[in-house]
């Protein structure tokens, strides 16, 4: 248990040691960014849009009881920008990206591809781990921007359908309900989420046990662990932000 913790610590520490020093694997980073960011966009956009619609629709009745459906845009805004946008993006990405990183690195470990890089005097950590963690850390926030926008548009569609609110009013209320702190917090959170997804996937894959079973296990545990950590981080960030907001 403690050995595992020490190994996790060493693994993360190695990232910070290696990320700033050359050689930089630009080509691989771009490739991973493409995989993580661009290729996830359709899935995440559709999901975000649906969540925007569903969340808005499901929130309406409770506001209707107070005759306060005009507060709907503000409610959606706070919910999506503060929590749903970053979290949903991260969860979908951990399912799509985290598992594939775990599986890919796991199979590379099992078929000795990582050793092959090592003996060809290429730093496999830099080539595989740093590039992937960088890609998730940069792309998850970018995806979060898209998800948030698309979710808000989904919310707008639903509000427009039932309350005939114009898009200008809708977005006015959306921005009225949030503060700079919300945007900063969400951005920081999504960076953290991206880092977590990449790190967990790489760690599980990099230290995957031998055999095909090891690959499956690496893919599976990277998703489960990443999702668990995402929620823990969400909780911690929420507490920190509330503490800041309170001051």
């Amino acid at each position: 248990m403690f050995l595992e913790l020490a190994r996790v610590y060493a693994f993360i520490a190695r990232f910070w040691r290696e990320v700033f020093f050359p050689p930089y694997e630009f080509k691989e980073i771009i490739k991973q960014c493409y995989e993580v960011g661009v290729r996830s966009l359709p899935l995440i956009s559709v999901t975000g849009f649906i969540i925007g619609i569903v969340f808005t629709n499901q929130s309406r009745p409770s506001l209707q009881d107070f005759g306060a459906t005009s507060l709907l845009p503000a409610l959606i805004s706070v919910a999506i920008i503060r929590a749903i946008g970053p979290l949903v993006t991260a969860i979908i990405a951990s399912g799509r990206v985290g598992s594939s990183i775990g599986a890919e690195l796991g199979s590379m470990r099992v078929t000795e591809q990582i050793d092959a890089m090592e003996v060809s005097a290429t730093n496999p950590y830099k080539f595989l781990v740093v590039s992937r963690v960088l890609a998730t850390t940069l792309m998850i926030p970018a995806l979060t921007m898209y998800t948030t926008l698309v979710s808000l548009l989904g919310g707008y569609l639903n509000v427009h359908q039932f309350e005939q609110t114009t898009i200008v009013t809708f977005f006015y209320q959306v921005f009225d309900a949030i503060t700079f702190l919300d945007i900063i917090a969400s951005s920081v959170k999504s960076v953290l989420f991206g880092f977590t997804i990449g790190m967990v996937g790489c760690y599980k894959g990099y230290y995957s046990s031998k055999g095909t079973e090891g690959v499956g296990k690496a893919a599976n545990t990277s998703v489960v662990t990443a999702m668990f950590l995402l929620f823990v981080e969400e909780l911690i960030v929420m507490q920190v932000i509330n503490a800041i907001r309170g001051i």
Partner: protein
Amino acid sequence: MLEKVRNPNIDTSKKVIYIRGLRKAFDENVILKGVDLDLYKGENLVVLGRSGTGKSVLIKIISGLLSADTGEVNVLGQDVCCITRKELDALRLKIGFSFQNSALYDSMTVKENLEFPLVRHSKHMTEQERDKLIDTVLDAVGLRQSINQMPAELSGGQRKRIGIARTLILRPEIMLYDEPTAGLDPITCIEINNLINEVQERFNTSSIIITHDLTCARAVGDRVAMLLDGEFKREGTFDEVFDTNDKRVQAFYNYNFID
């Protein structure tokens, strides 16, 4: 059965690998008890042994993938255990490692696989020079037509050749082959054996070939060493090694040629 014609270029005055008293254990399980090994320049040394006797561990220690518990491991004049990361990387460029499963990078084409070590270590090279070198090594392994294929599209034998080509591209002085013929049909085995000998002649490499395949051992080994109980029990030419009363060595020979 093909017999190895001893390579005339072997220089027994130069030891490229020199190992004394190598010991390696995983937890309680002692794999290598005290291995002494010399590899002379230009020589093909075959290490025989049953599965789990620590053959792979031995070459992984030589290439620095694993570290020895005790003992001296000297490769090309450098002690592998006690050099910096940078020195180790420089040393590794001189060692070619052919993995049991070829270990081709699945996400890259054959060309990208071959380029992979090149672009990182020969930065001064122009693209034309690189392409030319790739063609040369692909010619050497006889797979020029596969340049734009993905590893998944290749057969086991082809993968093995590309794996060897990838290590050759950096012009190594030492080649380490991990089970080069495992899982291949007899004809492909012979092709691979021939390739190993060709590489030895053409690129003037010194090689350690890990195998439990006696056909292969006889075909490529200038010298054969038998690993038993974590030590080299028998050493010499192929015939010398099996000219013994040791039951286990006899058994190893008999079971290999049972058919």
